């Protein structure tokens, strides 16, 4: 059985996520094949791209069904950046788009005076839950963010981490059952991010 299947919806920074998994010794594959997805312990839904375009491809390739099936079996899924946002019900990027609806809530734009803002760079985060993949060592830990939208979960108890941009606090991590998601890019956050993949591997070894 494959450790990790990285879902290929034609527009993510798949190779970086692949290399991060490989570097800590996970058995990983980039795929849109439902059989491969079905036979993997962990799914990663990566993210670079526009919400609407991504959902269109996911539906066209029937990947949504494979994701629902995976979650239905209580298997682990990780969402990264857009991949985190896609787990929610709706997004307001360009126009209103429907997401996978696995988590309740909306994805909204950072904006001020009607111009959109881009949160780009390395930021500190604050942990909100104890048992998650986030293993912060010190206040020095920083993660790379690149996004102009953020998720607002209805149930705030699923928030695992928060960060701040433009004097606004936003949710940058989710943990709900076997779903974990991050607004920042662990695969691009040097050693701070690689620790998340390491915790994922450790967790997998304990559970399976």
């Amino acid at each position: 059985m494959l450790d990790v299947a990285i879902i290929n919806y034609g527009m993510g920074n798949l190779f970086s996520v692949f290399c991060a998994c490989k570097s800590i010794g996970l058995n990983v594959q980039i795929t849109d094949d439902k059989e491969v997805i079905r036979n993997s312990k962990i799914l990663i839904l990566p993210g670079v791209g526009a919400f609407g375009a991504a959902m269109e491809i996911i539906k066209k390739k029937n990947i949504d069904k494979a994701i629902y099936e995976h979650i239905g079996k209580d298997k682990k899924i990780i969402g990264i950046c857009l991949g985190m946002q896609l787990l929610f019900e709706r997004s307001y990027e360009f126009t209103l788009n429907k997401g996978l609806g696995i988590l309740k809530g909306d994805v909204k734009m950072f904006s001020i005076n009607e111009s959109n803002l881009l949160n780009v760079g390395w930021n500190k985060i604050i942990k909100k839950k104890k048992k998650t993949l986030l293993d912060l060592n010190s206040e020095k830990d920083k993660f790379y963010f690149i996004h102009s939208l953020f998720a607002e979960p209805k149930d705030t108890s699923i928030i695992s981490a928060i960060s701040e941009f433009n004097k606004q606090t936003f949710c940058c991590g989710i943990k709900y059952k076997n779903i974990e998601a991050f607004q920042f890019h662990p695969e691009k956050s040097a050693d701070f991010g690689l620790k998340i993949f390491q915790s994922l591997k450790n967790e997998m070894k304990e559970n399976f």
Partner: protein
Amino acid sequence: MKIPRIIPKLDIKGPNLVKGVNLEGLRVLGDPRSFIKSYYELGADELVYHDTVASLYLRNNLDKLLKATSKNIFMPIIVGGGIRSLQDVETMLVSGADRVFFNTAALENPKLIRNTVKKFGSATIVISIEAIRLQNNYICLKDFGRERTNIKVTDWILQIQDSGAGEVIITSINKEGTGKGFDLELCEKISKVAKIPFIINGGFGELKHISDLLNVCLPSGICISSAFHYGNKPSKEIKINKNEGNFEFLKKNKNFLNFGNISIKDVKNYINKVLK
């Protein structure tokens, strides 16, 4: 306040890292992978890979470099040079880039900005502007500074942000590679019109130049090439591919006079001090 990211910029020609002055006279400095690894270890915030001949030859070779470096470099990378289509953007992202920049192709076909933003998201699409001072105006150049346009830099920025691009990289051709300080007049003009974040490139030579820059604007990032590359002068360990380019500089094995040994950490500490 957001602290500007420190972004080493790597100009690539064929298999080699190169560096010029005013985007001309490109000297070969060595295998880019050695420089990239060292910038990752030294704590750079982001990297720019720029294929310097791609738009001239209608090709971009950076996917191979991206694939090679993605294996052990876990940091954000912006890639550009010769990117012309949705397919090109996808190729770069799949190979390990996070964001992609256009210059020539966007000037020739401004619709490309909106089309790529729609598919890849605003955050992914960066526009590079090569600005040259002509009389009292700044004009956009294309093809790595080889061709002139009639488009004013400030007009172009307005159009870019209207099309949804996430960020701009502005290179001052007049200052690029000189180490004599940033083009403050250009920076001031840009900060007056730009609503989207902008990265300033070209001119850094000493720490004081940073405080000069921060006096006139607050960029989202600062690109530095010569000062880091020459401070990081190729050692014997750096492999060189001698099939392409100008090797005179490397053969002489001497230091470049305008630049001292300024590290990424020095620059970061200095910025933190200035902004406090």
